[in-house]
Structures are given as C-alpha cells and as structure tokens.
C-alpha cells in the first residue's frame, strides 16, 4: 500500500530518524504511569513517591496483603467482577446482535425512526438518571432481593438496560458490510429470517462478536459509579469499587494495595487486548474506513 515510496531514496536513515525519536518520546509518556504503578506496588511503603522511579528494595508485601487480609477480600472482588462482566458481555452482545440484525437486514415500519430514537437515547447523560434507577431497584429489591440494590443481579440488570444502545450500532455497521446477496440466496432457498440469523450471520460475525464482547467486558470492569451505588457491602464489591476505596477517600490514600491490585487486574486485560489487537484495530477502524 502506502509503503511503496516513489522517487525519494535520498537520506533514508535521516528521514526515518524523526519517526524513531517521536516513537521513543511517546513511549516514555505512555509508560511513565505504568512504571510508577508497578514500582509503587513493589515498594514496601506503598507510596507513589519513591525517591527514584524504582524501589531500592523490592517487596511483595502489597500483593500478599491482597490475598491474606480479611478486610480486603480481593479474590472475591475478582470473582464478582468476572461473573458480572462476563454475564453482561455475553448477554448484552447477544441482545446487540439480535437488534443489529433487525436494523441491518429486516425492513419494518418505523425502522428509521427507531434507529434515530435509539441514537438519541444513547447520548443522554445517564448519570443523572441514577436517581430514577435507584428508585426502580429499591422497589424491585423489596419483591426480588436477587435483583435489587446491593446485589450483583440488580447491577447486571441495570447494565443490560444500555446493551441495546451500546453495541447495536457498532454491530450494525459490521453487518452492513456483509454482502446482501448472501441472505438473498438463502431466502431463495427458503430460509426464514431466524434461520438466516442463526445459521449464516452468527458464524460470520463471530470475530466482531469476540471484539465487542471484550470491549464490553473491559467497559464493565471500568464502570464504578453505578457499581458503587449498588454494591455497598465490601465482600460484594467489584474490583473497581473495592480498589477505588483505597485512594478515593478524602483522608489520604493507601496506594500499596491499590497499585498491587491494579497490576494484577491489568495484566490479564492487557494480555487479552494485545493478543486480540488485530481484531480490535479492525473493529475500531471499521467505522472510519467506511466513510
């Protein structure tokens, strides 16, 4: 593609030098906080302010604390987060792909209007709806404690409310790129819309579904406003809510457990992200390239 350079062979090394310098400057910027968090997690004092960037004495005390302290049930938080984020990712992507299929392939009355309405609903600053969400789930919790305030089930349900707006648009963009001839041929063979969906579209979309699921998983992992509203009990918290409590308070911060927990939580996420890098890049650039 554009790697074919034409008629400009002069000073190759020179013309590439700025690229390397630029990259290294940005790398320093990128990894600075990462170095800080790793070094702080390994320092015994648990400060973010070690004299040098690297602790003189490496200690794993902060990590040990996460697995031994009764008041910091870190493994439970991880479990809660994995259950919540996976359930939300799978269900919401399923709901999203259902809706995207209808938006992309089925023709029905009010389709354009419903798409516009969905688009608008999505941009509503939903934090303010917190008050209403609180009222709704307080009421539900009286009848069904499992999906009320204070329970992962309730939080999951609250997240699922946004699943249609969240992934449906992205998935619709992808479905639009699948040639229409494919389903027309299937239709001629007598396949019903549900057969077309389950037997043709679902297998074809599996790569983008993986990406959407991962992005949704990360999104849930990062969410803490709604989670902190729902999950007051310490053992029921998610990683985000649990760790935030160490440093978000007004009176000083306890960086040791926070940074150690962050490193442990970030490693699998970053590994997953980097290993699926190609798909993710395709996913996020799909919108731009389509133009």
């Amino acid at each position, binding site marked *: *593609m*554009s790697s074919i*350079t034409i008629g400009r062979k002069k000073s190759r090394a020179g013309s*590439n030098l700025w*690229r*390397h310098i630029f*990259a290294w400057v*940005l790398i320093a*910027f*990128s990894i*600075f906080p990462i170095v*800080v*968090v790793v070094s702080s997690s390994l320092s015994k004092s648990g400060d*973010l*302010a070690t004299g040098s*960037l690297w602790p003189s004495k490496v200690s794993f005390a902060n990590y040990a604390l996460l697995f031994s302290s009764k008041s910091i049930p870190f493994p439970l938080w991880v479990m809660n987060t994995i259950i919540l984020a996976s359930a939300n990712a799978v269900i919401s992507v399923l*709901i999203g792909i*259902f*809706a995207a299929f*209808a938006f992309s392939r*089925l023709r029905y009355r009010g389709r354009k209007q419903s*798409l*516009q309405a969905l688009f*608008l*609903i999505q*941009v*509503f600053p939903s*934090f*303010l*709806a917190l*008050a*209403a*969400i609180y009222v*709704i789930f307080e009421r539900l919790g009286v*009848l*069904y404690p499992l999906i009320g305030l204070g329970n992962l089930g309730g939080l999951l*349900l*609250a997240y*699922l*409310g946004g*699943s*249609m707006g969240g992934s449906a648009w992205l998935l619709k963009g992808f479905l639009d790129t699948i040639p229409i001839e494919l389903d027309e041929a299937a239709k001629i063979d*007598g396949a*019903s*819309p*549900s057969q077309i*969906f389950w037997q043709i579209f679902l297998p074809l979309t599996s790569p983008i579904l993986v990406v959407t699921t991962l992005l949704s998983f990360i999104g849930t992992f990062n969410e*803490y*406003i709604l989670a902190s509203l729902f999950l007051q009990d310490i053992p029921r918290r998610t990683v985000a809510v649990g*760790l*935030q409590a160490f440093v978000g308070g007004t009176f000083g*911060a306890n960086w040791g457990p*926070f*940074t150690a927990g962050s490193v442990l*939580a970030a490693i699998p996420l970053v590994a997953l992200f*980097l290993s699926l890098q190609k798909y993710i*890049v395709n996913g996020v650039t799909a*919108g*731009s*390239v389509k133009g």
Partner: protein
Amino acid sequence: MNMIKPSTLAMIAKLFVMAIVDSLLVWMIYVALLGSDFLVGGVLVAILIAANWVYFSKRTVAAKFLFPGTVLLVILVVVPIIYTAWMSTFNYKTGNQVSKDAAVAQLKLVGLVPDASGATFDLKAGSSGSGHALLLTDQATHEVFLGTSAGLKPLAAGTYKLNSLNVAVSADGFTPLKGKDLVTATEWISSFEVPSTNGRYVLAQGLDIAALMHEKFVFSKDLLTLKDTLSGVTYKDNGNGNYVDVSNKDNILFPGWQSFNPAQNYVGLITNPKLSGPFFRVFVWTIAFAFITVAMMWALGFVLALAMDKKIRLRGFYRAVLILPYAMPSFMSILIWAGIFNQNTGALNNLLGGAHIGWLTDPWLARGAILLVNLWLGFPYFYLISTGALQALPSDIEEAAEIDGATGSQIFWQIKLPLVFQILSPLLISSVAFNFNNFNLIYLLTHGGPTDVLNGETAGATDLLITYAYKTAFGSNEQNLGLACSISVLMFVIVGALSMWSLRRSKVLEEM
C-alpha cells in the same frame, strides 16, 4: 416467506426457552401481587403478554429480534430519562423534598408551643380499650384525665387510684404499661397527641410529664395562607413550595414541599446570578474542554500514524507499547495519574527534585493536567483510527499529485490532511460528544476541583456540566435534584443536537 418449516429442533429450543421465561415471569407476577405492588405486577403482565405474542405470532419478524433489548431499554433507560425530565419541572431540593401535606403536618408539629395556661400533667402511659392511652394528672389542680387519640376525658373521683404523691397510677378501663413494655413504648409516647379544645394538644414531654400545647400556626382551609398567632405574621404559599412572610420575602418557613413549576429551574439557570454564574463558567469550560481535548488527541494520534505509516524497524514493538494506555483499565490509570499529580506525595513533584507544585489545586494547572491525562488515555485510539484512514486513502492520489509537481508539504497539508479529516469527522464528532460527558475523567482526577469553597463557589475549575449536575443532585451540601435534572436535560439537548447533526451529515441514515 416461510417456504420450509423451521426445523423441529429449533422449535423445541424455542418452546423450552419460552417455557422458562414464562414461568419466571408468572412467578415474579405472583410475588408482586403477594407484595401488593400492582405497578410492578402490571408491567410484568404486560411483558408476559407481549413476549408470548411476539414470539408465537407469524407477523412479528423484526420484533422477535428487537424485543429483549427494547424491553430493557424502555424500563431502565427511557423511563429514567422521562423521570429526569419530569423532575426538572419541580422545585425539588434540600428543604423541599416532601409533599405539601407532609410539609403542612411537619409545620404543625414545629409550630406547637406551650399553651398560655401553662398546664402540665403527670403522666402514666398505658392502653385503654384497643388503643394507646395516657393517664394524666394536672399538676396544679390535681384533676385526672384519660387521654386517648379521641380526646381528653375528665375522670370522676373514685374511678382512679392515686399514689402517695397524689398522682393517678391506675383507673377503671386503663391498663398501665409495666417494666419492659415501657422501654419499647418510648417511641409512641413521644409522638402521641391527645387533642384538647381550641386546637390544643396534650403532648408528652418525656416519659412521665406532659404539657398542654397549642398550634401557633393557623392554616386557612385551602392551605394557601397561614398565620403565626404568636407573632401575628401572615405567611402565604409562594407557589414555589414554601410559605413566605407577606411583608418580608426573605422570611421563609421550612420545611417546604416539592412544587410543580415547569420553567423555574431553567429560567433560574439563566437569570439567578447565584446559579447562572457557575453554570455559564462550567458551560464554557465543558465546550472548550471537549473540543480542545479531541483536537489534541487527534493531532498526536495522526502525527504518530504518519510516523508509523512506513515499515520502519521496531514498528510492531512501538505499536504494542503505544497502545498500552488504551489497553489499561482507564479508571485505574486516571486514579494513578491523580496520585502522580499529588502536591505532597506525587511522583511528578518528586521527579522534579521535590518541587511543591499544586498540579491539581491551581485552576489552570488542573485544567492542563486534565487535558494531559486525557491525551494519554485517548491518543492511541486516534492513532489507530488515523492509521485506518491513511490506509483507506487511494494510493494513486499521492502519485498524481507528485506528477503534477506538488511538494511533500503541499501533499500533506492540501491532500492527505483534509481527506483524513473528512473520513474521520464522524468519529471526531462522536468523540467530542463523549468527552462532553466525560464523567470518570473529571470525577476521578480532580472531583471537579479545585473549588474555592471559601468564596462560596459551588462549581470547581474543572467541573464539566455532567459532574456539576452530579454534585448538584447528590452533593454533600445542599442537594437540588430539580436543578440537576434541568441541567442534564439541557446537556441532552446540546449533545443530542450535535449528534443528530453529525448523523445527518455523515449520511449514515440515508444509506440504510
């Protein structure tokens, strides 16, 4: 359309799923009715009927795919939005949170003052018939009364027994409380009112003393005015949830009530200097922040994309390291940056040789810090999408321009940049809309601060509309849900208009 029958297996699977959903819904309806919550029950019945119609009718093809998402969306997103819009039309804030009836009842209680007669009673708590009752002995006249919620009944001599202190301790038809019953009774005793004549009450002033009280506030029948009989001041319902002194409008009675006043919150945001000052400052910063931060992230991402748009050595490595900020869980990164910027213990001041710079406590430095952190968080995304856009450029454009004698910088400024900008503009606009509401960044990094609380500021230097609204609604000082809701409706209008405009412009809807 259905030329062949759906396979039996699919049919069985569908029946199986629907059986589970139906039985779950029926159980939930049962529980709701058992708890006599008819709103929840009714909604669930509607869902049950709709679900079965959608999935067993042949005419509802699209609805089969849209149903689950739509139900969740309507209940958990649309209803809260409507609720927010509805609340924005109320004067609903600290001091005005209850209904008018409840406010009137509370005012009556507040307005109870000892009666001019100064009558006090010795008190024995107990029950009479089926209700609570107080056996009362007037301390001055030694008359004895039985007080129930129906009224004060004088007892004839001989129907009660006095103790050595001339206090009645038992009476016919009255069962006194004993021992541990007395402990649990304190709650009702303290709020038990025995009506007397002329709007007066006998109220317990502890567990063994009661006093004759009268209401100093006299309400008009329609509850539009009330008179303080002690001071002679008349208060009028100001139509905005409070009784206000007719001769001095700063003399307001609390508690007030939530009153319906559709335009008040919106007009107040523009005309009340106490609200409009912070609102406009926050508004300007929100717009500036959203555009500046996207411009910065895109500029850096685009230049990086240009730098990497050539197969140089280590490109794969650069790429993997440079998207790390995008791969890290953002809530952690933001909190870590907050720690790095900390004035006393932060790594940045430490790195600068123990400097003592208040990165997050100086308004302009804090704004800069916000932009820097968001740049860190966002440039990899813009690098990725810029790379995609560069690769989508037709490669012959560059060749054609070179043949026409264009220089390298001309090709860049007049061809590549405009084209990439055009391709990316929908994503740039949605980024602006996203950052307009970037709650996490502000809340976790600066909490909207620094805020000059001493000078009565309610909005911080880095507050966006969304964090300002959040603080207004749920803040630690005065909470004003009505005002916060009206701010979020305004934000919705702004961001919605911006998004609709970009949607139209990108012609996404036309090609559907």
